[in-house]
């Protein structure tokens, strides 16, 4: 607190000179541009044709096509030109695009169900984790709980465990309970991982809300639960939203559990994307298209979360 107050009245002594600023800015922008290039390359690859994507030397300038996206959403079969010539004219632009390569669309690919799985498992586990986390965080913040520090450490330590090691007994347990490769199983697992982050983050946010408000409400005859619902929660909304986004990002990005515990029904996007295969190996434009679609929400969330990012990645210890 004092640090913040002092800083705002700072003298210009410590302010960097314009030349130093320009130098620093130049270096940072250079780094930022280099670091973003791989992502831009992927976004561009999604608009390349199959042959442009694997051209040597790699092509920077190319004729954009939506082939990658069409391939991502469809399954195609190769046909003879004669067969295609006999077909009725293509009904849609993507039919036409596919036929140019002597193929016909045989049906939708699995990408939509996988995307839906990612959404259901992501939102399901986020909702549960934030719900449980809010209750627990409120209790840890406001009540005296015996061994509170030990419990909090226990909660955090479950998140630190290597996922591959955790997956071994979970695999056995889920096999017994028929939860292998089910959305429910993945939701429960991700909730358990996320709830630790939710408790730690939300405790920090709720600690910041002055107790006097709810105490006034209690004196006015509210019950604890009413005070929580009508006084504390409305003030914690930003914190809860930020926490929810962090949980969602984790579930969205998670790979180790997903690849070890799901194979079809409940498979999410991360284990699916690398195995988008075309004729002769990975279909790079389609993989890049999937990656782009998968990453766009994350980029948006990062911008939204900018102010709370530091808190999220340090379990609420460092605020900004």
């Amino acid at each position, binding site marked *: 607190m004092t640090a913040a107050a002092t800083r705002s009245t700072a003298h210009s002594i410590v302010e960097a000179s314009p030349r130093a*600023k320009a130098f620093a800015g130049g270096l940072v922008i250079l780094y930022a541009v280099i670091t973003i290039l791989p992502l831009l390359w992927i976004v561009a690859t999604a608009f390349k044709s199959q042959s442009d994507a694997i051209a040597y*030397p790699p092509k920077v300038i190319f004729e954009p096509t939506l082939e990658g996206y069409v391939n991502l959403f469809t399954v195609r079969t190769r046909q003879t030109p004669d067969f295609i010539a006999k077909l009725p004219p293509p009904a849609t632009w993507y039919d036409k695009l596919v036929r140019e390569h002597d193929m016909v669309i045989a049906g939708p690919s699995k990408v939509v169900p996988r995307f839906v799985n990612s959404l259901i498992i992501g939102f399901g586990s986020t909702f549960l984790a934030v719900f449980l986390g809010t209750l627990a965080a409120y209790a840890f913040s406001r*009540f005296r709980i015996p061994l509170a520090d030990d419990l909090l450490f226990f909660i955090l330590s479950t998140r630190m*465990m290597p996922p591959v*090691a955790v997956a071994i007994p979970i695999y056995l347990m889920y096999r017994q309970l028929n939860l292998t490769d089910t959305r429910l199983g993945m939701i429960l697992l991700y*909730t358990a991982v996320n709830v630790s982050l939710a*408790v730690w983050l939300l405790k920090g946010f709720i600690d910041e809300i002055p107790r006097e408000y709810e105490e006034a409400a209690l004196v006015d005859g509210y019950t*604890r639960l009413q005070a929580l619902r009508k006084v504390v929660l409305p003030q914690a909304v930003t914190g809860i939203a930020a926490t929810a986004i962090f949980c969602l990002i984790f579930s969205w990005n998670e790979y180790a559990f997903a690849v070890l515990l799901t194979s079809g029904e409940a498979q999410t996007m991360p284990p699916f*994307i690398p195995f988008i295969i075309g004729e002769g190996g990975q279909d790079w434009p389609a993989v890049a298209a999937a990656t782009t679609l998968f990453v766009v929400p994350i980029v948006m969330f990062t911008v939204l979360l900018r102010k709370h990012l530091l808190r999220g990645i340090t379990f609420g210890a*460092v605020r900004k």
Partner: protein
Amino acid sequence: MTTILQPDHATIPGVNKPVKSRAARRVHGLSDRTIAWLFVAPTIALLLAINIFPLIWMIRLSFTNLNLSMSYLPLRFVGLDNFRDILTDEDVWFRLQTTAQFVICSVALQVVVGFGLALLINRQFRGHSFWTTVILLPMMLSPAVVGNFWTLLLQPQIGPFNYLISLFTGVPPSSFSMTGQVSLAPWTIVLVDTWMWAPYVMLICLAGLRSIPDYIYEAAEVDRASAWRQFWSITLPMTVPFLMLAVLFRAIENFKMFDMVNLLTSGGPGSTTELVSISLKRAAFEKWRTGYSSALAIILFVTVFGAANIYVKTLNKVKQR
């Protein structure tokens, strides 16, 4: 502006207590004690069911010869045999060594790059906020997806990485393979990991730098301390707790690294980049040696648990700043 959590623990006795207990007496409905337990219990129950129960089960399995691909074998308790096998196995030590090298190199590189960037960004040039967000993007992505698309970027012929290197050095692009060569693959995983996580160290260091009150620098100016001296006696020591936090967290995360490396090199070529998590996955989910891999998992647990303990202590120290 940065503020660090005050050491206010919600349970600090005294502060609001008299008011609270007076209020509590008037409250209708459930008592505070009941509510506290009702609120904490579901979380603890979930963690017990999904984390602790399986963990105990795994401890039991680690003393058995269970092999899921040969489940016709009678389940036998073998005592500490699995642990003895692991600790005397040269391959396991080699994996641990590979993992240690990866952790040390990547965290060191991330600290250098991250701290450097933080120092530069802290000069608050115009537009620093926008560029900081751009730099932060890699760390928000899915490690699996990152590992996967870097395999394209690093393809010897069709990937742009080798091509760029050859533009600057003149080495033919198809003459080396970042993921396929024993001498390069370990550096490749370090490089991609740094690309992804240097921003993490940067963000935390930035918070550390911003927590240093300006008057300290002003005092140093008055005393005519050189910029060099100011860095070594003010900037660095005051950022170290934050840096420690970042280093510990990255070390823990990289020790258990699986996703990114599994997709980038899947442990290869040969077993040059086979980190201990990847080796564990092979033992548990390819060879199905459940008893053996449970024992290895427990060894990893104990290591991470110890590190997590130190992490939380550091975290609390940073909080108290």
